[in-house]
């Protein structure tokens, strides 16, 4: 039984609960490939799902070590699936190290498939085990299936005469075959994919397909009580149109391509590699148009070049993670001072300093809002889901151009890598992104006159006749933009820069609660990647008869209109954040509302179960 949907009968939840499957093995074992194929077959089975890869921090750690373990988790079901799941119903462990590090992710009573081929003295030692967990009672509470996968794979492929090493490499497909059998999935999609992928080496295709089938056939020999629950169909109620499996990073890349397409102007993407932001650079570098990528010598050069591109009339975009965001601080201030559009993407990871590069955290929020010298406000956005990663790029570009301001977009290591089945957007229904028109007044051009409504200054690129002008980071006079140390002017410009950003909120729809409870005993306030966990927790608690409302902020600065009143409508308000309470402290300051925080800073996304118990605790506490 999944603990992400404790009572499947309540409040319209599906009769068949969602399931969580986790694959774990050595980085060289092909775990991510098996996981991705399983996700594709899940899409074919019309279930809703979400996946999350859990890479090791090391490039290619020695085989069998604890820090070389790679994992992949998927949750799928008939109801909308919002997270990759807390703990797994089924765990597949390819070696002792994978078993040790992943057992905590398996529900008690869950199904555990173990390849026991490396549970010898050497394998146990590498995993720092003194005794063999297959024998010492560690696994007593689970439904254990052990198979010597290596041996079985070799047997199955014996007739192909491949040699031990290449044959062993097919073991992930053997396991996938077994898992497919377990969930009643057909083999054809994976088979077709193998055939086309190894077109040039048909013997490899053959070997992998043989292994897949052998694993599947092996399943028939097993007797196991849980199988009917596993294989029950979970057909999603939401019908999706044309779709593809997409991660947050891929969605962002496509969103940037959309900005170029809708604006009919190449964007200039300048970045320096850093985990977990690099995947975005990699995705963009493959596009053949729309985005001009530039791998700079460092993050300062990256943002500087992006700002130069914006000055020259293209939208400059730069991305990094925490250490890089810190380095971009000074140049962001320049962007604010010269009032040019710019997108700064921060894929957050565990901090401070180098911290935990592959782990998600939401601890760059106050830095994004306040982390520049001088009075230097800018809009800050955060996408909530992989899907939203696409849309937020378009929105951020519009805001940057309309406001003539750098905009920060905060995502994180979880959202960048989490993937789900994405319904392709209807591109034709999305309005153009307009580059502002330049009209010559005949008089000397004044680069710092402001649009009375947005307070934005005009954006005029070099090459435009009769508009040559000069901008810079020294304080400048309203209107002419000439250097000015005049006290009253500085006061006025400081105010204009703040108001301009604040006015972004006027153009946004007022804040709304998420689906579900529209009033209640507590308001849970989230932002960014925690959307799925909080929504799921709220849903499950409400199904239990609790009264939990959820608001999820996509706009962190300026805060959306109506939030103050919304918060004050509830007897309790609590943020749920993967930091020590950064949004919480901002809300308290802005609204003087006694908001508290459910905080977690352990490099992991929220478990729905933990959130539920934390929210329940708050509900039980008296209203302050």
């Amino acid at each position, binding site marked *: 039984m999944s603990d992400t949907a404790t009572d499947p009968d309540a409040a319209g939840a599906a009769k068949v609960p969602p399931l969580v499957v986790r694959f774990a093995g050595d980085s060289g074992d092909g775990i991510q490939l098996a996981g991705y194929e399983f996700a594709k077959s899940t899409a074919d089975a019309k279930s809703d799902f979400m996946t999350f890869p859990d890479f090791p921090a090391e490039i290619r750690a020695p085989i069998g070590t604890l820090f070389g373990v790679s994992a992949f988790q998927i949750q799928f079901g008939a109801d909308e699936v919002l997270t990759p799941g807390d703990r797994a119903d089924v765990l597949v462990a390819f070696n002792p190290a994978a078993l040790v590090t992943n057992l905590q992710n398996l529900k008690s009573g869950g199904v555990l498939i173990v390849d026991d081929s490396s549970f010898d003295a050497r394998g146990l030692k590498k995993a720092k085990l003194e005794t063999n967990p297959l024998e010492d009672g560690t696994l007593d509470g689970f439904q254990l299936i052990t198979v010597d996968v290596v041996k079985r794979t070799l047997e199955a492929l014996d007739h192909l005469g491949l040699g031990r090493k290449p044959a062993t490499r097919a073991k992930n497909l053997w396991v996938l075959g077994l898992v497919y059998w377990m969930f009643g999935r057909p083999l054809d999609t994976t088979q077709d994919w193998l055939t086309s992928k190894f077109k040039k080496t048909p013997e490899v295709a053959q070997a992998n397909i043989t292994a897949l089938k052998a694993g599947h056939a092996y399943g028939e020999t097993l007797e196991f009580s849980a199988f009917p629950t596993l294989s029950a169909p979970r057909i999603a109620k939401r019908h999706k149109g044309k779709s593809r499996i997409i991660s947050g990073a891929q969605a962002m890349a496509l969103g940037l391509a959309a900005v170029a397409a809708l604006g*009919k102007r*190449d964007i200039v993407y300048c970045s320096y590699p850093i985990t977990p932001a690099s995947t975005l650079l990699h995705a963009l570098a493959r596009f053949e148009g729309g985005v*001009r990528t*530039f791998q700079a*010598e460092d993050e300062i050069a990256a943002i*500087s070049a992006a700002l130069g591109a*914006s000055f020259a009339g293209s939208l400059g975009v730069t991305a990094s993670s925490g250490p890089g965001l810190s380095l971009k601080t000074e140049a962001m201030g320049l962007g604010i001072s010269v009032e040019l559009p710019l997108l700064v993407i921060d894929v957050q990871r565990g901090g401070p300093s180098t911290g935990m590069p592959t782990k998600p955290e939401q601890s760059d929020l106050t830095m994004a809002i306040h982390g520049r010298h001088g009075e230097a406000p800018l809009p800050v956005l955060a996408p909530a889901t992989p899907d939203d990663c696409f849309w937020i790029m378009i929105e951020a570009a519009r805001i940057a151009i309309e406001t003539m301001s750098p905009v920060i977009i905060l995502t994180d290591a979880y959202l960048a890598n989490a993937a789900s089945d994405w319904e392709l957007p209807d591109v034709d229904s999305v309005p153009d992104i307009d580059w502002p028109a330049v009209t010559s007044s005949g008089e000397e051009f004044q680069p710092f006159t402001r649009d009375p409504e947005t307070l934005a200054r005009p954006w005029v690129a070099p090459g435009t006749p009769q508009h040559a002008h000069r901008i*810079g980071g020294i304080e400048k006079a309203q209107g002419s933009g000439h250097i000015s140390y005049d006290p009253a002017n500085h006061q006025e410009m400081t105010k204009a820069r703040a108001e301009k950003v604040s006015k972004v909120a006027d153009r946004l729809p007022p804040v709304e609660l998420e689906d579900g409870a529209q009033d209640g005993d507590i308001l849970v306030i989230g932002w960014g990647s925690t959307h799925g966990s909080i929504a799921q927790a709220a849903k499950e608690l409400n199904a239990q008869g609790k009264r939990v409302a959820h608001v999820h902020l996509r706009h962190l600065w300026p805060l959306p209109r109506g939030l103050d009143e919304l918060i004050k409508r509830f007897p309790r308000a609590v943020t749920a954040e993967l930091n020590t309470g950064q949004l919480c402290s901002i809300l308290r300051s802005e609204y003087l509302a006694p908001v508290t925080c459910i905080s977690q800073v352990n490099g992991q996304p929220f478990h729905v179960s933990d959130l539920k118990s934390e929210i329940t605790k708050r509900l039980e506490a008296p209203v302050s």
Partner: protein
Amino acid sequence: MNEMPVKDVKAFTANDFGSDQEVRWCPGCGDYAILKAMKTVLADIGRTPDDIVFVAGIGCAARFPYYLSTYGFHTIHGRAAAVATGVKLANPELDVWVVGGDGDFMSIGGNHTLHALRRNVDLNLLLFNNAIYGLTKGQYSPTSPVGTRSPSTPGGSIEQPVNPVRFALGAGAKFVARAADTLQTHLPGVLKRAHANKGASFVEILQNCLVYNDGAFGAINDRSQSHEATVRLEHGQPMVFGKEEDKGLVFDKETGAFEVVNLSDLASKDVLAIHDETNLVRAQALAELEQPGFPVPLGVIYAEIAAEFVEARGFSGTKSKWGRDELKALL
């Protein structure tokens, strides 16, 4: 920029390139002379101010863009080369100049200088070297000679300075030249050569800071003595110097270094070194010539034709080949 006014194709004079801003350099600063030469050069180049961009960091030198009627971006300290690279990526058709002092280009901005040079981005990089931090009131800089007394080195500096020409060659620059602020018959020619080069053109301009480092370049930019203290390089020509053209340089074939000779001591001028601006090893040897003892080489020290960065990427204009159809295909 949907409604673009029609480009004005009239010829521009040097004066047309002046801006209306009050010049805030100290009276007598070498920067004035460079500004003057630049205006002449811009008029000669024949592009409208609308297509020209000056990007600068921070420093006295970096105020340069304010005093020209072109597009200008006064950025932050040290980052001008990186900003300018972005300008070029967005719109390769622009004519982009980068101006900075020795602090801007060689201290905080050294890395961006290095990478702009090795990538061979089509920028004209003008280093105004006054061997001091002018704007921050006179601290020694990475080009200050050992022994420089300054507010941060009251007892005299002890650091080996960086030689900008040697550095640029080490960085893989394809165009390296040197000039001096006051030599108005020489400087414009060097700037024009730099402009003509497609790729990163690095020009060190020796510039006198009257207030904090007066006379740092001794006779070099003193017009009356300059010919004794400098050798003006011309590709394919023998290296002769002196007001009377009475001295020359020969190349020592054993050590690979240059030596000064009196022309009157020579049997034939054929032994004089001939300047070959395409020879890197010779250019590196020229970079080592310093006062006293040697004339300081001015002019184009090294020039090699090589692939330009933005062109090699295949970018042009600002418009996108990309539209809704391409987006749909991608999705």
